[in-house]
């Protein structure tokens, strides 16, 4: 007796080199997209400065130094200092760590819950699907940042809870996306073939259906990281996110507001940092969407 599952997997392994060229095609297309490359450059700068922050700036982001409070941008303090004499530039550099962390972790939370639920819901259909869809309907009835606010209200403030809240708020997006993709490939010939050969459902979903959903998931995740960063900064701004003395950009903005007339560098620059980081992710997301869409690839 030969193992049917192994046979099929061996067959699907044959297509691996083809997937490779597909990846290279996407990258070639992406590389020619000037806006996407600009986005990549912006993100590289943020990631590098987040990693090497202690090497770039000599100042501690949370150390108070009343002697140098309220300074305007100068050669010593590139972006000035705040009311406690903390170096604004250092705080923004270290803030990149917090924002990137929140962005990636909350999206990971959303994916870990949303993707499997969406896949199972689309694959099995029936009552399970109906139940999941109704739950998702309820979650998306809370518009935009509101669901994250509700979750933070229940869990309490703080960076970790913001990650969980924003993660939960992005679950519906993944569930719907993956469910839609699964529904569209479920009836394809190769899935029926795999079923006819007696391959288990889990294996079919993971090895034969999910690879087809990967493109949309990656594109959506790029945009979702941008949204997560915006929401987290919004929660920080409202006082529901990171707490003092963490150098979180949204929090810095709302604290700096009181000094807007005398020291507007305390609100301008953290805002610009959020803006550029979100822009970076959005530009790459746009680029990848175009690169993965064969229709637009032909157009250009």
């Amino acid at each position: 007796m030969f193992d049917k599952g192994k046979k099929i997997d061996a067959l699907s392994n044959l297509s691996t080199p083809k997937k490779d060229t597909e990846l290279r095609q996407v990258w070639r297309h992406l590389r020619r997209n000037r806006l996407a490359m600009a986005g990549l450059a912006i993100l590289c700068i943020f990631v590098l400065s987040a990693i090497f922050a202690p090497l770039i700036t000599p100042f501690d982001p949370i150390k108070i130094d009343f002697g140098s409070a309220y300074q305007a941008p100068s050669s010593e303090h590139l972006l000035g200092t705040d009311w406690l004499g903390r170096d604004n530039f250092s705080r923004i550099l270290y803030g990149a760590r917090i924002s990137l962390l929140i962005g990636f972790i909350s999206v990971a939370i959303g994916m870990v819950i949303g993707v499997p639920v969406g896949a199972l819901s689309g694959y099995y259909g029936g009552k399970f699907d109906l139940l999941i869809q109704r739950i998702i309907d309820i979650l998306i009835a809370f518009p935009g940042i509101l669901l994250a606010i509700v979750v933070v209200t229940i869990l309490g403030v703080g960076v970790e809870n913001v990650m969980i809240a924003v993660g939960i708020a992005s679950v519906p997006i993944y569930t719907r996306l993956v469910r839609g993709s699964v529904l569209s490939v479920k009836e394809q010939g190769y899935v029926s073939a795999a079923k006819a050969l007696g391959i288990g459902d889990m294996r079919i979903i993971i090895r034969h259906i999910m690879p087809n959903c990967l493109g949309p998931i990656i594109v959506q995740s790029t945009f979702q990281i941008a949204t997560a960063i915006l929401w987290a900064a919004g929660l920080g701004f409202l006082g529901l996110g990171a707490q003092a003395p963490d150098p979180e950009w949204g929090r810095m903005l709302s604290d700096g507001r009181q000094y807007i007339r005398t020291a507007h560098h305390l609100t301008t620059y953290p805002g610009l940092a959020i803006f550029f980081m979100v822009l970076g992710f959005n530009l790459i997301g746009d680029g990848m969407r175009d690169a993965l869409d064969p229709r637009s690839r032909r157009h250009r």
Partner: protein
Amino acid sequence: MYGYVIRRLLLAVPVLIGVSILVFAIIRFIPGDPARAIAGVHASPEYIEQVRRDLLLDEGLHVQYYVYLTNLLQGDMGRSTFTGRPVTVELAERFPNTLLLASTAMVIAIIIGMSAGIVSATKRYSLFDNASMLAALFGVAAPVFWLGIMFQLLFSVNLGWFPSGGIGTWRHLVLPALTLGLATTALIARITRSSMLDVLGQDYITTARSKGLVEKVVVYKHALKNALIPVVTVMGLQFGTLLGGAVLTETVFSWPGVGRLMVDSILARDYPVVQGAVLILALFFVLINLVVDVIYAFLDPRITYGSKEVE
């Protein structure tokens, strides 16, 4: 058509029940004693005990929810622990302000966003197209609260054109509405452009053109209605984003709306008001989506006969 509308209405019922359960759960899930949370930080032990009895907190959750829902349907959302006034009164004062802000932002977004999108699509790759699409990229990325502060700095502090906060005249409305509407403007411009380009590339447009129709007629009579379908969908979803964004914008501009009431209440642990504010924003969003789906069916008659999977 009517069948579809009724089915769509029925579909909203479980959503509304679910929303009410989640809002009901806010207080029950908070770590600690719900009675203390509702009564307020400085309440006397006797008052906390009374709240516990009023809310039947010693009963099962299903009994509590039943009482909560019955009260809710009678328009009773409890009292603010901060002001002692009924939550419904607080909301009734604030909600029209949020509605005014969000609708003004939406109108701005529709007018500017759609015009820019249509012009961009008809004059593809022109200077206007490139400039407005770049502006749209920036508009989506800018955090709404930061944008609001920058507007205050420029138009209130430096130029003195508009007041930096509060409510009263139309001049108070300009900056918050522009701030809130900018991201939606950007998104509508992008969607309108790509949707118009899609439609303009279709065969029936080529036919219309080859019949010798004036370009204006082709664009506005033949292309626009079909191009609008994705735009209307986005508008509905965007209204939700606007309601969510209103929370931030209202905080920046001291606009006395439901969003700011909610944030203040969260920080003051005034949970009955938080519940009410969350509930009214969610209810309103469900209503908007209902209306959008009906408009959607009107724009595209095929939907009526299709499956019920109309998202």
